[in-house]
């Protein structure tokens, strides 16, 4: 193969970029309605965030007593979603199971969108976003290896880079009608497996390592994070894949969908088991540390804000488990999708409100301040989710036609020639 010159590369990339842009701007009413909806959420989020920058983080409900809240809860949940790509990668590459092989790329695109949202949630949570560069050596100083946040910065960005590199490479090569370079892709993809475990383990260690917070200072946190991640991410993917099957000529085998659902069932079982183990330890040992778990499930004194969320999460997770473990309900698309929504909602509540808030309530000196997000926080969070969904949508808009062979360089070139 002749070595491409710099000019060739630029020309090819340009063609890819131009073609992608055309694809993104082409769509039916439903597509544009969806994009407009997301755009509105993004604008609303941006306005809310500008208010936050102007006044300070006091526009949120976070205070000294509960110094992390909705933003960090969402961040934690989304790291799990990003890690979930591995649920596809393992059967596809390690077990070489063809039905999933073709759809691994969507897991990677989901990972890219999820990590983007993670980074945005961190950015809106810090008090001085203008000092973000303080984290980046050589301009700043990254307190590695002492600070687990420093580890998180590294592994999240690395995971993002790996997924971006692999996905872009595969799509770019397919666009040019060439197979991807196995020597490059396969090691990176295999690397993404321990990396996915790594990002969620490091995120769990962020909380796990704090002796000041007994609710978090439990060895079970890292395995529990992984278990919940491996159900929540694929839940989104399953819904997306069914939508793709419905609205595009893309073919996804039923076997692939069912296998993913089955793996999710096992992950959900592990999730429930680990929660149960945690609950046993707290309630049976009955030490002062029980206070935090009790606040989450039963409230303390007159403070009950989180109790409905706690039991909703339990119920949703149990329903999801039941629906996924039985092959009958797995096969039925309606129950499958109910299961997906239940999984997503259950894990979202449990990671969002159920991890951060009870860990900080009561605070280290016994005070209970009941936190729940303000409208500003909800608007900013919705805006960030909209950015992630939009990114995912746009990437799919390019990736699906490429996978189907509809969007290819020679076709675009032929079309351009015909138009002249």
């Amino acid at each position: 193969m002749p070595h491409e010159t710099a000019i060739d590369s630029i020309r090819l990339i340009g063609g890819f970029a131009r073609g992608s842009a055309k694809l993104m701007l082409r769509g039916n009413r439903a597509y544009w309605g969806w994009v407009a909806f997301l755009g509105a959420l993004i604008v609303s989020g941006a306005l809310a965030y500008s208010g936050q920058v102007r006044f300070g983080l006091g526009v949120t409900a976070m205070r000294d007593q509960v110094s992390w809240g909705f933003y960090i809860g969402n961040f934690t949940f989304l790291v799990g979603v990003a890690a979930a790509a591995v649920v596809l990668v393992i059967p596809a590459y390690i077990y070489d199971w063809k039905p999933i092989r073709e759809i691994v790329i969507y897991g990677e695109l989901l990972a890219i969108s999820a990590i983007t949202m993670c980074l945005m949630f961190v950015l809106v949570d810090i008090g001085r976003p203008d000092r973000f560069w303080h984290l980046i050596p050589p301009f700043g100083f990254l307190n590695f290896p002492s600070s687990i946040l420093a580890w998180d910065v590294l592994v999240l960005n690395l995971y993002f880079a790996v997924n971006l590199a692999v996905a872009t490479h595969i799509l770019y090569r397919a666009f040019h009608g060439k197979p991807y370079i196995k020597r490059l892709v396969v090691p990176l993809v295999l690397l993404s497996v321990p990396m996915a475990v790594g990002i969620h383990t490091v995120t769990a260690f962020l909380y796990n390592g704090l002796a000041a917070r007994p609710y978090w200072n439990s060895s079970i946190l890292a395995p529990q994070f992984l278990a919940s991640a491996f159900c929540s991410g694929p839940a989104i993917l399953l819904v997306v894949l069914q939508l793709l099957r419905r609205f595009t000529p893309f073919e996804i085998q039923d076997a692939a969908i069912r296998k993913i659902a089955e793996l999710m069932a096992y992950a959900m079982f592990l999730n429930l088991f680990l929660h149960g183990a945690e609950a046993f330890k707290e309630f049976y040992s009955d030490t002062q540390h029980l206070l935090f778990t009790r606040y989450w499930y039963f409230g303390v004194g007159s403070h009950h804000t989180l109790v409905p969320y706690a039991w909703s999460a339990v119920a949703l997770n149990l329903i999801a488990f039941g629906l996924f473990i039985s092959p009958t309900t797995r096969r039925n698309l309606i129950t499958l999708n109910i299961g997906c929504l239940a999984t997503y909602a259950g894990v979202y509540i449990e990671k969002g409100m159920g991890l951060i808030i009870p860990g900080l309530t009561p605070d280290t000196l016994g005070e209970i301040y009941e936190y729940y997000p303000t409208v500003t926080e909800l608007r900013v969070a919705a805006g960030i989710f909209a950015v992630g969904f939009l990114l995912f949508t746009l990437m799919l808009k390019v990736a699906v036609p490429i996978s189907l062979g509809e969007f290819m360089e020679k076709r675009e070139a032929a079309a351009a020639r015909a138009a002249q």
Partner: protein
Amino acid sequence: MRSRAIGIALALCGLVRLAADGTKPPAAGNQPEHLEVPPPPFSEGIFPCSNCHASMPPDRHRRELTAMHTDIVLKHDETHRWCLDCHDADNRDVLHLASGEHVAFEESYRLCGQCHGEKYRDWRAGVHGRRTGNWNGAKTYLLCVQCHNPHQPRFHALAPKPAPRPPNRTMK
């Protein structure tokens, strides 16, 4: 008598222990050492007491005062002691210890330290009561009576400064 002897023996043991610990033991009560203290906080015009008392014969009968000093309410072991157990009957310008030894008002801590031995030792080490000055350099002592009314030494309750504002969802 015997309990007094045991008490003194215990106090001496304590002093010996202090010496053994390597911490400088403060001077025992019978070794007057001159300390920098502020002047005693006399009420306006009350000192020297001998202005009135030099011409009055001392009345050693224990009683409640009606002619003068009615503003002083004694709440300091008043079931066992009264004025002349601390104020010298013959010379009202000084105080006296249990042994009869005279103590100037400027050294009233020696009198307090007679009964409140542990607090006296702590005060000498700078641990009891307010310490002003520098941790690294000149330190000053306050007289016991600068904070404690010798006739009613127990502190009165005070009004606390305002409580902190509890965290509120709305800041604007």
